C-alpha cells in the first residue's frame, strides 16, 4: 500500500488531511507500522524543506504537533511488533531551570528533535533539579537538555551538573545546555557535554553526541 498522499499532507502541515487519510487507511486495514513510516518520512521531508529555506519554524513546530496527534491515534493500536520508543533515534529530556519561566528556545529544540526522529520528554519550565534527577532515574534518557535565559537563573545549571555527578548518573547521560547568557566556556566550566548556541545547533550537537552510541 502506498502512502504518497499521507506523506504529502504531512509535509504540507495539513492536519485535517493527515488525520483523514490516516483514518481511511486504518479502516482499509493498513498496517500501523507502515502508516508510522509514512508520517516519519513526511516529517523528514518537512525538515529537509526547512533546511533548504522552503519551510519556516511555525510549519516545523506545527508538523511536530500533527505527528503527536497522529501518535495518539496510532499508539493504542500498536500491539506487538511496533514500538515507537524503540524506533526513536534516542530519548531526550528537556527542561528550563528552576526560577526561569522562559521556554521558547527549549520548545524549538524539542520541536527540531521531534521532527528529527527523537522521543522528547518536555518537563516544561521552572523545573527543580531534584525533579530532573528523579526523571533521569525513571526515564533513563540519552540526553538531558537544560535551558536558562537569565543571568539570574543560569547558575541552576551548575547546581544540576554537580547534583547529577553526586547521583551516580553522570556517566549514563549526556548533558547539553542552552540559553541567551550562556557560552561554550560556561558549558565547559560546569562540566556539560555540549552547548547549543541556538535551536539548530542544539539539535546538531545532540545528533553528534549520539552518533556513535
Amino acid at each position, binding site marked *: 500500500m502506498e502512502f504518497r498522499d499521507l506523506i504529502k499532507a504531512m509535509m504540507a502541515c495539513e492536519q485535517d488531511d493527515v488525520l483523514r487519510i490516516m483514518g481511511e487507511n486504518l479502516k482499509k486495514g493498513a498496517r500501523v507500522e507502515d502508516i508510522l513510516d509514512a508520517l516519519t518520512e513526511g516529517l523528514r521531508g518537512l525538515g529537509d524543506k526547512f533546511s533548504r*529555506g522552503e519551510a*519556516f*519554524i*511555525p510549519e516545523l513546530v506545527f508538523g511536530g504537533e500533527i505527528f503527536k496527534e497522529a501518535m495518539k491515534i496510532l499508539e493504542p493500536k500498536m500491539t506487538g511488533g511496533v514500538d515507537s520508543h524503540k524506533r526513536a533515534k534516542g530519548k531526550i529530556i528537556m527542561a528550563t531551570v528552576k*526560577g*526561569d*519561566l*522562559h521556554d*521558547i*528556545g527549549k520548545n*524549538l529544540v524539542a520541536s527540531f528533535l521531534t521532527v528529527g526522529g527523537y522521543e522528547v520528554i518536555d518537563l516544561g*519550565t*521552572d523545573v527543580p533539579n531534584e525533579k530532573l534527577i528523579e526523571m533521569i532515574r525513571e526515564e533513563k534518557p540519552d540526553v538531558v537538555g537544560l535551558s536558562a535565559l*537569565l*543571568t*539570574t*537563573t*543560569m*547558575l541552576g545549571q551548575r547546581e544540576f551538573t554537580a547534583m547529577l555527578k553526586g547521583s551516580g548518573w553522570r556517566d549514563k547521560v549526556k548533558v547539553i545546555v542552552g540559553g*541567551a*547568557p*550562556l*557560552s561554550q*566556556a560556561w558549558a565547559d566550566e560546569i562540566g556539560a557535554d555540549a552547548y547549543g548556541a*541556538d*535551536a*539548530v545547533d542544539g539539535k546538531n550537537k545532540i545528533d553528534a553526541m549520539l552518533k556513535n552510541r
Partner: protein
Amino acid sequence: MVIRPKLQLLEEAQLKLTIQDAYHILDDVGVRFKGNQECLDRFEGAGARVNREAGIVKLTGDIIDKALKTVPSIIPFYDKDHKHHLFDLGGEHCHVTGDGVAIYIQDYERPGHRRQPVTEDQIIHSRLLQECQYIRFTAPFMLYDVPREIADNYRFLLDYLYCSLPTYCSAWSKEGFDTMDEMIKIMGEGESDLGKKPAHVHPNDPSSPLSWSPVVIQNFMDCLRTSLPAVVLPIPLAGATSPVTIVGTVVQNTAENLSGVVLSQLVKKGGYLIWGSGASAFDMRSGTAPQSAIESIMMMCLIAQVGNYLGIPSLGNLGRTDSKRPDEQGSFETANSYLLGYLCRVNMIRGAGILEYASTISHEKLLIDNEIAGQAQRLVNGGVEFTDEARAVDLIKEMFTQNKSFLRSKHTLANFKKEFMMPGPIIDRSTRTAFEAAGYKSTLDRAHEAWKKIIAEKPPRPVDEKKRITLIEIVRARGKKYGLDQLPIERM
C-alpha cells in the same frame, strides 16, 4: 518657537482601545506571579482576585486606575555620587543608554571574532561612556575574570570607578541586590534623601506571556523598597511568546506592564517605575529575536507611546543591531531605531555599543552610536527654530541686494553652532585629498583610533579615595565567599 518633530504611530482612540484590551485581559485571565507569597498578599489586600495555588492574580480596572494615579511621570537622574542633577526622564525627554547584557566583546584585531570580556574591557568601556556626549546612562556587562556569583557587583564597582553617569544595571541574586544597595549608599554618602536622587535603574523582565518568575518578583519589589527606579521590561517574541501581529504584541506587553504598575504602587506608593519593552519579531527562519527588525522597532515605539499616554516614563530596547560586526548593517539598524525612538518619544532608548542580539559589546560601535545619537538628538531636541530671526527674510534681501556673502554675516557667526551639530572625528566629511592622506580609513578604523586616543589622552574621572576603598572591600568580601582573595582591579 522651536518645532520638535514627533511621530504618533496610533491615534488616541486606538491607544485607548489597546489599553482597554489589556485591562480586559488582566481582569478576565489575570497574570501569573509565581512563588512569592508576599506579592500575592499585597494583591489580595488591594482587592485583586488571587488563586494562590496557581499564582494567578486578576485585576479590576479600579485597582489599575488607582495605581496609575500615583506613578511619577518624571524621574530626575543624578550622577553616581547622587550629588548633581543631570537630566530628567519622561515626558518629552529622550536619552540613549549603554547596553550591558553582553557576554562577549568584539575583537577589533580579528574582525567578526569575539571573546569573553574581563576587567580591562569594562574599564575602557566605562571611560569611553564618560566621554560620550550623547549617551546618558552606562550599563556594565558580564565579566569573566571573577566568579560568576559576584560578577554583578564587580561590574557595578568598576563602572562606578570609571564613569559618573547613572547606571542601568541588574543584580543576579538576593545577595547581589543587597550588596548593590549597600554600595549605592556608600556612593551617595554625605547626600541626603538618596531615594529622591536616583542614579541607577534596575531592569525586571516578566516572562511573556503574562508571567513573573520568583527572582524577578523579588528583585522588582526590592527595587521599590530601596527607591531604585524599576524598569518593567517584558521581551515578548511576536509569533512565539505573544501574538504574531504587531498590535497584539502591544496589547500583551501593555497588560504585562500594567501588572507591574500595580505591584510597584502596592509596594511603594509613588515609587519610580519605567514602562519598558524589549518586544521583538521572531525570525521564522533562524529562530532568533532580531530587535533591530523594523517590526520590532514599531512594536517598541508603540508600547512606549502607550506608556507615555498613561504618563509613565518609557523605555525600548532600541539601537541594538543583529549584525555580528560594527559594520554597515550595524550602523543603519541603530540609526533607524534611534531616529524612530526619538521621533516617537521613547524616553529611554536602550542600546548603544552592542551587536548580535545584544550579546556582544564593542568599543568602536559605542563611539559610532554616540554620533548617531547626536544626530537623532539634533533632529528632535534641537528641532526647527521657527522665529523671525531664523527665517532671516531681511538677511536674504540684504545679502542679495548688496551682493554679500552669508559667510561674512553676523547672523551666520551667531547661529551656526546652534543650527549645525558638529560631528566627532568618526564621521568623515573631509575632502577626497584629506581622506586619501589619512590612509583611506573606514568608519570602523576611525572609531578604533578615536577610542584609543580618548584612553591615551583623557584621565579617568576622580573618585573619592575613601569611597573607592570601601566599595572594593565590600565586593572583595563577597568574592572571598567564592574563593577570590583579591579582585582583579586590585592587581592593576
